[in-house]
């Protein structure tokens, strides 16, 4: 009897030791590698923040299950920046100074990125932006030759250009109205769209603003209509974009809506319902258009792990997932968690990474910290509660129901 108790005790101790190993320290390679993850886990941006975080978690769990990086486990240090700039700066300082993370993944919101990128830059810790489209990345080289900011997301430069190309070049609209939210994100997007349309010798016929949590878009839509806009080009996040779609339906104003990639957010699709049909946006990843084995496996794993059918923000989840693998690959190649070495490794990744979004072969260079270029982005269209791939461009994608090329008309 006594021996049985002793045995149980021994098993218990072993179990504990094993658990501790998984939670923080690995036996062979030393302490866990801490990677910071920050984004909005609450509020209107949360579908992006949570999907990004869940994508990162999925990748980290896979990497750890395979034995980690450099024989050490990855430990994620997650912080909610609540989509507010001040909070973003605070959590970044906490990650860098207190948590001593090796690299940081995130954030979602442009304002948060602007308020926080200088801390990792100063501390020489790589920041791999995996969602924010408006954050400066290559622009930072001018004042920071030793640039620690990288991105794996379609930048606003690419997105604004694609939005204008869709409206002006493809559909031939002469009169377009811009509606952008008054955050750093929306205003930056508006500026980029202005530049893109100016390069075609044109300009928007009306430019309106709205605020986060605005629920009534009547004045903006009336002005766009009065100006005779043939299409609305929008930059904002899900809930307010849905209010625009719903407001158009209320006013009986039917023009195509083309805008930032955030038109693919679940809270836009759910809140706008049929009013959102036809809304078009640039996408790096479309759940319904996944064609590669890797992407299909990622979606299946995500659905299984988080018990959801539709990923709230598939773009964020996929970019979160790929960003984790890229940073892990850089640490592996550097053979160290030292910031400058990891940065150098990111800039010259030897092994191609077959990712969820695309295959990345040397995604970064010493002067180019953008992994996503125009060839990796397509226009998606909202149709009946889902983002559908454009059958015209996505030849390998499964065809969307209905007509072959859903034009962004209501």
């Amino acid at each position, binding site marked *: 009897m006594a021996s049985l108790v002793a045995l149980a005790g021994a098993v218990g101790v072993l179990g504990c030791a094993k658990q501790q190993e998984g939670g923080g320290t690995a036996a062979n390679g030393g302490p866990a590698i801490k990677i910071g993850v920050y984004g909005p886990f609450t*509020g*209107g941006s949360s579908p992006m923040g949570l999907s990004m975080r869940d994508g990162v978690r999925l990748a980290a769990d896979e990497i750890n299950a395979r034995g980690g990086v450099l024989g050490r486990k990855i430990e994620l240090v997650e912080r909610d920046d609540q989509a507010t700039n001040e909070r973003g700066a605070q959590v970044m300082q906490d990650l860098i100074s207190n948590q001593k993370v090796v690299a940081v993944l995130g954030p979602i919101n442009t304002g948060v990125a602007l308020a926080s990128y200088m801390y990792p830059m100063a501390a020489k810790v790589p920041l791999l932006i995996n969602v924010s489209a408006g954050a400066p990345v290559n622009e930072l080289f001018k004042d920071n030759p030793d640039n620690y900011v990288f991105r794996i997301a379609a930048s606003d430069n690419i997105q604004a250009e694609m939005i204008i190309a869709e409206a002006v070049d493809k559909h031939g609209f002469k009169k377009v109205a811009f509606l952008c939210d008054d955050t750093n994100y929306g205003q930056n997007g508006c500026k980029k769209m202005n530049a893109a349309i100016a390069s075609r010798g044109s300009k928007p016929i009306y430019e309106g603003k709205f605020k986060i*949590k605005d629920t*009534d878009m*009547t*004045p903006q839509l*009336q002005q766009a209509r009065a100006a005779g806009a043939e299409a609305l080009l929008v930059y904002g996040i899900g809930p307010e974009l849905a209010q625009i779609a719903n407001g158009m339906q209320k*006013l009986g104003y039917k023009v195509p809506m083309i805008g930032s990639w955030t038109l693919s957010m679940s*809270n836009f699709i*759910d809140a706008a319902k049929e009013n959102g049909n036809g809304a078009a946006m640039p996408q790096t990843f479309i759940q319904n258009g996944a064609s590669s084995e890797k992407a299909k496996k990622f979606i299946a794993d995500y659905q299984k792990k988080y018990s959801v059918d539709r990923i709230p923000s598939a773009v964020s989840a996929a970019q979160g997932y790929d960003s984790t693998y890229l940073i892990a690959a850089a640490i592996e190649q550097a053979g160290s968690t030292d910031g400058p070495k990891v940065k150098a490794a990111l800039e010259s990744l030897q092994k191609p990474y077959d990712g969820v979004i695309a295959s990345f072969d040397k995604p970064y260079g010493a002067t180019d910290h953008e992994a996503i270029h125009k060839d990796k982005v397509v226009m998606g269209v909202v149709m009946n509660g889902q983002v559908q791939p454009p059958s015209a461009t996505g030849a390998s994608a499964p065809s969307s129901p209905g007509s072959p090329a859903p034009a962004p008309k209501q």
Partner: protein
Amino acid sequence: MADLIQLILSGVALGMIYALLAFGYSITFSTSRTINFAQGEFLMLGALTGLTVDVRLHLGYVMAVAAAAGIGAVLGVVLERVAIRPALRTGSTVAWVLATVALGIVARNAAERIWGTDDSPFPAPLSSEPMRLGPIRVLPQEVLIIGIAGLIMIAVEIFRRRSIWGKAVTAVAADNEAAALAGINVPVTITASFVISSAIAAVSGVLVAPLTLAGPTMGTLLSTKAYAVAIVGGLQSGIGVIVGGLLIGLCEQFTARYISTGYKDTPGFILLILILLIKPAGIFGKRSIKKV
């Protein structure tokens, strides 16, 4: 012309939402000289409770309104007991301000735990197709908001002026020591005012959610605007908050339409500052003389 009427209608609908919340502020202010700074969170809890009752439990919109009123009433009692009564006993102003703000934060975090952080659509009880009156289009929900908000405010005003209970409230507002001497149960009257005010806030949540989406942060901005409305209209006047609500609602829409969408909120808050400078008790407020 049609555009103008359309704009006025949307301004009125917006204004009535603000007025309804501001009305809640005025009810508690008139009995206890306190305001519930968690009003926006009560609105949000009402909306999310309603959402659960309506969508998850399939009990329909009327039950959602009833459930919201119920949860609002309970929250009112809790708030009065926990945050207001101890503060009134010690005579501290700071205490009730902080305590109600704190309860609001607790309520928001609790809602995030229970319902998640995302904004969800709330199915409209009436058709979501707009009604057409010539070139003018109105959503049935907007009419419902204007109608029900008006009815609630009229009902409470009649109650306040005609019934014996209402007179008790007025008496407590005028002088609570004298009211107590006359046999009015002052604490019960104050509790009742919080019950009514919180229930109104929660019901407004269910009313506005089909237009605004329901989520843990839905009440924050609305309650700030409503506070401005209450100050502009006069915290002690039922009519005042309606006028204040409409004034700010229309101001926002007209500024956005004819001046700039970027300055939408500015005139409302300039008005607030002007009122505070010129007539601190609000447009319809009576100046209260504080005896020492």
